[in-house]
């Protein structure tokens, strides 16, 4: 579209510029406050669940996986009828300090607490393959304190593995 001279010389009214300045100041204030919030939580306690998904089974969800029932009933998992908790690990992750959880399946799940406050955590996760010699995926995510994050897909014993990560920040 051809630009008109009117557009070129358009000048916003004064009140618009004032509002923009106030908005910019608010954004800067939030950005400046963010590091202080991020430094609030120095440790987080995480429970990690390794779940085996198979096509054989009666479709029931065992009690120890009830916290994942709604997710496992989703269409994403419609191809699977067997859900079994292979292993659960409890780990404490510290700020900026990588922590590795080695599962009996051979997979390693690396976790690092990058920051967070009372409500939200920022975490880096890295999942290796079964022999532990290759990283399949690494990701950084922010999630509510106590929220569940899922990493799935590695093949295992005729099925697939699903890793559920749930962390809660610890103050002090």
């Amino acid at each position: 579209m051809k630009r008109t001279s009117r557009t070129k010389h358009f000048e916003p009214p004064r009140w618009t510029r004032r509002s923009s300045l106030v908005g910019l100041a608010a954004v800067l204030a939030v950005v400046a406050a963010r590091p202080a919030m991020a430094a609030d939580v120095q440790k987080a306690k995480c429970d990690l669940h390794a779940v085996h998904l198979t096509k054989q089974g009666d479709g029931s969800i065992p009690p120890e996986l009830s916290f994942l029932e709604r997710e496992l009933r989703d269409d994403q998992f419609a191809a699977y009828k067997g859900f079994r908790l292979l292993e659960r690990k409890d780990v404490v992750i510290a700020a900026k300090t990588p922590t590795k959880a080695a599962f009996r399946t051979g997979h390693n799940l690396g976790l690092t607490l990058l920051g967070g406050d009372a409500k939200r955590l920022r975490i880096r996760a890295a999942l290796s393959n079964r022999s532990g010699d290759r990283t399949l995926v690494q990701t950084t995510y922010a999630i509510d304190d106590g929220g569940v994050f899922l990493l799935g897909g590695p093949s295992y014993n005729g099925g697939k593995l699903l890793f559920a990560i749930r962390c809660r920040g610890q103050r002090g």
Partner: protein
Amino acid sequence: MSHPSFEPETLSAYHDGELPPEDAARVEAALRADPKLARETEAIDELGTALRAVLEADANDVPDARFEQIWDAIEREIDAQVAPESTGLVARLRAWWGGAWARPALAVAGVSVASLALFFALRDPPRDAQDTQVAAGRPTPAQAEPSPEPPPAKAGVPSGDVAQPVAAPTPGGPPALAAATVEDDASNEAEVEFIEFQGSSGRIERIEGRRGTTTVIWVREDEPVDTERDL
């Protein structure tokens, strides 16, 4: 376009065999006498045939696994209703089940549930912008985090993992006995700031869970991931 003495609902009910015998006889007599009315009921018949054909075509697109899941859910629901009751109620339910009308009624209920499930299955769910296929080792610009992330992991250890294992197996027996602990109000919705699939590919999915939307990262190793989307 309906016959002066019959509402369209009446003709439709006649077509579906839902009219009382005396009303049905009245409609039949009118059909014999009025060719225009007969054509109108033929149109209803054609409409029903076309509708059934469309629904059947839609149903064919739903994987068998999904239908199995729906029937499993129906059976579980029936079991859950029967199990905790007293034997008296069980006996009454058995008597009910023995009734000639009960099985068709249950079948109709089952078809209704399946239709609802089909409707929701075929509905295009709202997708988050991050519900994206990501090529192996190549995060999209929107997902890439330029500076704070470490370089790709070295062979043998996932990125950033150093020899500092603090993982401890859950005490108190095999994993199958380890119960889930806390149920709280935390949302599972995660904001994925960075992702990198190394030597493989994958995707980010969002699914509805108990605490809102749950983020799932699916890694595709050497073989395709067997999810319903791949069927």
